[in-house]
């Protein structure tokens, strides 16, 4: 591998020897599509006919009025086919798999959005598909498990470790080191060994390209700030990349869980609990102890509940090229409720982190300012978690009734 994919001190390819040849091949194939001008056209055509690209940029008039500050726009990645920005990466990698001639795809999933997107892509392109998902996430994201299985994928619950996203990634790697001849691992975020961070960001950059043009078209100027939630970091890098060369403040919002000082969160870049380490094939900030053992993370949203973060974002953090904040579980649910009631839009719990932070800051900005929130996904998948969070009695009644029907 010629280029080891470093972003400052972060990134690299800490690979077990058995995967080196596979990554060499992947790097070569990715270089090919990157340098082929017709590829991006093919990709855009696929995304416009199969997904809903370009996704709209929605002016949130009622929220803007409520906060009496900056004009709030929402980039609607929730309107992608399968309901999240994950489709951008997955369809891109699907084209790559076709080019490589492999017949099977595997993926990890946390919230289940990446798993559903991968299962969808596999169905469309005719690949076999296995999805690894932490057992804890299987429980909290049951509707997505249902859809993955209906789409023809095998969903393997991972019972090792903390039984969430990072453990699903480990298990996917274990599958890959055995089956790399036939199989491509569709990593879902801008993490892992090179070239994944670069490749996933490349496919997700479609978000930022569109958003920049859209805001210029409608407002005639650039936004003051752009907000995105940060789990692994792919939706954030997707929208941020459109504004890398602009005087725009980029704000990444991590899972504050029960608070950044509670030890129950997944804030790698904005808490004091993380330090540089090497795991899952790359170097970045990890939530780990002094020995280098990874810690348990917590978030109301399965998709942000991850111990590491994109090396590209770690580098931007150190260089001050993006600001990182956190939103707690409680703030996130409040932001979600408000967005539903004011705009008739249901953001995913992950995306609601970006909304929560934007709502904290919007009132102190001027009415001349414009901000964009990246709504990475839609919230219907979270119906069980949200119903619990808002403690809806009618929903409980329905579930109890449904259970009785099955028991009858």
């Amino acid at each position, binding site marked *: *591998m010629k280029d*080891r994919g470093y972003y400052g001190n972060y990134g*690299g*390819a*800490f*690979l*077990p*020897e*058995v*995967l*080196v*040849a*596979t990554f060499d091949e992947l790097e070569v194939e990715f270089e090919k599509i990157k340098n082929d001008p017709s590829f991006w056209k093919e990709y855009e055509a696929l995304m416009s006919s199969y997904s809903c690209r370009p996704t709209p940029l929605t002016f949130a008039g009622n929220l803007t009025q409520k906060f009496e500050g900056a004009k709030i726009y929402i980039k609607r990645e929730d309107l992608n086919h399968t309901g999240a920005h994950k489709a951008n990466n997955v369809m891109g990698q699907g084209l790559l798999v076709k080019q490589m001639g492999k017949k099977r795809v595997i993926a990890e999933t946390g919230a289940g959005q990446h798993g559903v997107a991968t299962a969808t892509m596999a169905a469309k392109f005719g690949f076999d598909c296995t999805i690894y998902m932490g057992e804890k996430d299987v429980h909290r994201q049951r509707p997505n498990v249902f859809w993955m299985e209906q789409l023809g994928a095998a969903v393997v619950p991972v019972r*090792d*470790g903390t039984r969430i996203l*990072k453990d699903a990634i*480990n298990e996917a*790697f*274990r599958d890959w*080191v*055995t*089956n*790399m001849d036939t199989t491509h691992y569709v990593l879902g975020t801008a993490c892992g060994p090179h070239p994944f961070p670069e490749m996933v960001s490349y496919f997700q950059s479609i978000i930022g390209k569109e958003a920049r043009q859209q805001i210029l078209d409608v407002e005639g100027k650039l936004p003051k700030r752009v907000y995105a939630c940060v789990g692994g970091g792919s939706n954030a890098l997707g929208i941020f990349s459109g504004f890398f060369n602009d005087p725009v403040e980029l704000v990444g919002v991590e899972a504050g869980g029960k608070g950044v000082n509670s030890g129950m969160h997944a804030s790698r870049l904005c808490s004091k609990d993380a*330090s540089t*380490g*090497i*795991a*899952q*094939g790359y170097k970045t900030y*990890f939530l*780990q102890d*002094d*020995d*280098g*053992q*990874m810690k348990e993370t917590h978030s109301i949203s399965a998709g942000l509940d991850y111990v590491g973060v994109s090396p590209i974002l770690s580098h931007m953090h150190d260089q001050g090229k993006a600001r990182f904040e956190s939103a707690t579980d409680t703030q996130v649910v409040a932001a979600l409720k408000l967005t539903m009631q004011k705009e008739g839009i249901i953001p995913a719990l992950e995306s609601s982190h970006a909304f929560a932070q934007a709502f904290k800051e919007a009132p102190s900005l001027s009415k001349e300012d414009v901000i964009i929130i990246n709504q990475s996904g839609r919230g219907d998948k979270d119906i069980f978690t949200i119903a619990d969070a808002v403690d809806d009695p009618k929903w409980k009644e329905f579930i109890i009734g449904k259970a009785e029907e099955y028991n009858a």
Partner: protein
Amino acid sequence: MLESYIKERRKTKDILLMTHIVIGYPSFEASHEIVKQMVEAGVDLMELQIPFSEPMADGPVILKANQNAIEKGSTVKKCFEFAQRVSKEFPLPFLFMSYANILYKYGMEQFSDKMAQINLKGAIVPDLPPEEGEDYIRAMKKNNLNPIYIFSPETSDERLAYLSSFASGFVYCLARKGVTGKQTAFSDDLSAYLSRCKKATNLPLAVGFGVKEKVDVDYLKGKADIAVIGSQTIRLVEEKGAVATGDFIRSIL
């Protein structure tokens, strides 16, 4: 030196045996008993694995052992103390096996200095290829320690040569793709691959992944210098306890 120890030992034995433990699994006392049993049964080298929470290259058996050891308090400090104790007590070369982050967090140089201090001979770090291992290699060299490199059946001849240029002590050849503790077919393919490995290095060859019974060890005679037994002894300890390991080793030699 490790290489000359192996070559010397091979003059009287058709094949040497390297075994593996996860330090602190199922307990520190049991780990000590396993080492004692194995040494007395005639093992030639031992890998002491410092547990890591994300052991990417390990299969279910060793993965579970890693997690259990960490939960029971197998810290890096305690692993060093354990390694120091056994290397004082038993006259054979001990190596560390762990993942890059354990060394990185400790400091590559400090880790290697400490290894030299307690008389360990080398380390196997499966997720630290030479391209990422500059500091590690420098520190190991400074202390005359052996960074053990891994060959896989997927490795090209060109890369075998590249890896050989960093290797010392011996080379660890994976018998197959995949993770530890799964079935391996001891076949002509393996034999062809091992002759490819032999061409790439003058160092002794160890073969591991899926070696679990006498026939496997016998198959490797004449094709490799060291047979590596990993997951199988952990399974045995789980089923029959630490005291069963000595007889098991005697039965496969």
